[in-house]
């Protein structure tokens, strides 16, 4: 029977094409972890890596809109760099006419960077935030 381990090359290519940082597959007898650092994709063997090595997550715009780092009625950004956030917490907003959508944290972590200025028009998938996940806490 074919296993993902037989297709590392293809999976690596897909990972690179999709600009995804990490692919992890776990089975009863084997674990495959592929890490894409932008330049190349490599296989991490064996035990789980320490959290310091865990790649940071890029949080992308879930829709086109005007990026807002704060609620329009508020004076301060809703999430500040270096702040810890829980999975689902809004990191910022996207305004589409009168409609306001949240950009939620995909998992618990520490906000390490805001990549776009308040008030910028962004497209679908534009990188907005860098988030360092907190080990062991997933959404």
């Amino acid at each position: 029977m074919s296993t993902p381990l037989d297709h590392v090359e293809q999976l690596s290519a897909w990972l690179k094409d999709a600009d995804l940082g990490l692919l992890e597959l776990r089975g009863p007898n084997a674990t495959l972890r592929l890490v894409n650092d932008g330049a190349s994709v490599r296989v991490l063997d064996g035990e789980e890596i320490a959290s310091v090595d865990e790649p940071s997550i890029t949080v992308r715009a879930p829709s086109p809109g005007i990026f807002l780092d704060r609620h329009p009625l508020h004076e301060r950004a809703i999430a500040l760099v270096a702040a810890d956030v829980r999975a689902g917490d809004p990191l910022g907003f996207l305004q589409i006419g009168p409609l306001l959508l949240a950009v939620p944290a995909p998992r618990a972590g520490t906000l390490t960077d805001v990549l776009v200025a308040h008030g910028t028009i962004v497209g679908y998938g534009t990188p907005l935030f860098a988030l360092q996940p907190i080990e062991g806490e997933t959404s």
Partner: protein
Amino acid sequence: MIRVLSAAALATVQDLGRTGGLNLGVGTSGAMDPLALAGGNILLRNEENAAAIEIPVFPFKVRFERSTVFAVTGADCAGRLDEAPVLPWWVHRAEAGQVLSLSLPKQTTWRATRAYLCIADGIDVPAVLGSRSTQLRGSFGGHEGRPLRDGDELPTGRSNDRAASGFGLVPPGLALPLEADGMPAVRVLPAAEYDCFSNSSHDALWSTAWKITAQSDRYGYRLAGRELNPLRPLELRSHGIVPGVIQVPHGGQPIIQMRDAQPSGGYPKIGTVIEADLWRLGQAPIGSSVRFIRCSWDEALDASADIRRWLANARRLVELHCREGRGR
């Protein structure tokens, strides 16, 4: 059902108002900021005229007795659901037993004073004369015809499964600003006795600031400013008046009739705040000042069309967003 834990004062159940009864002496009541109420009902995908709680004094605290979806519109009251922050003009989910606390409005980017707690399917008090609004003068409608008290239990409609959480609206106060010389303003039509006032009164009306005094409430706003004087003493019989009418009693300090105004009065009327701008007045804090901008009948109708357009656009985008979410 929701239970009022701390009502402060003068929180009432309101919908868009009890229209069609002025000729019978029944005032309109209804939300002082009908745009905030309408916005909340759009967010929750409620029927347009669903009732909410209007909250003018803080802190205010309620407990949700069963899980529901809600939005706090109007002023930003730094809401908390238990410990979690509640965004203004945003749809949140509450579980049974959770407590919502609202505190003194922050007026940093939009000067507003009244908050509306809107709930999926609305506050389900009986409709009286076609409305769920509290008629304080007649002590009917709303919840037992009176302001809410600690311990009151308010029935809510069965939580509709139409409402989704996790999105919001940009408050129309930011999208539809209106100022004159940097001061919040409302548009005014000259009223029947306008020509009976002196030229200097006309000047004062259009070009000076009017302070909203502490003698201002849902019945009417008493203003302070330059004295408005008729050319000669005016005595009128009582006649029908509507919310927005600016009366000038002896003494020359005007009164704007608001949602709980009585339906008749005998003071001369210098102007009428147009219906499309009454929500702006409804949010104006006591002690703040407003300016009056003269407008024509056509401009008043255009202003109403602007409001309807904002509401229609908000409704369209919320429906698109909610349907898209359902398809995923």
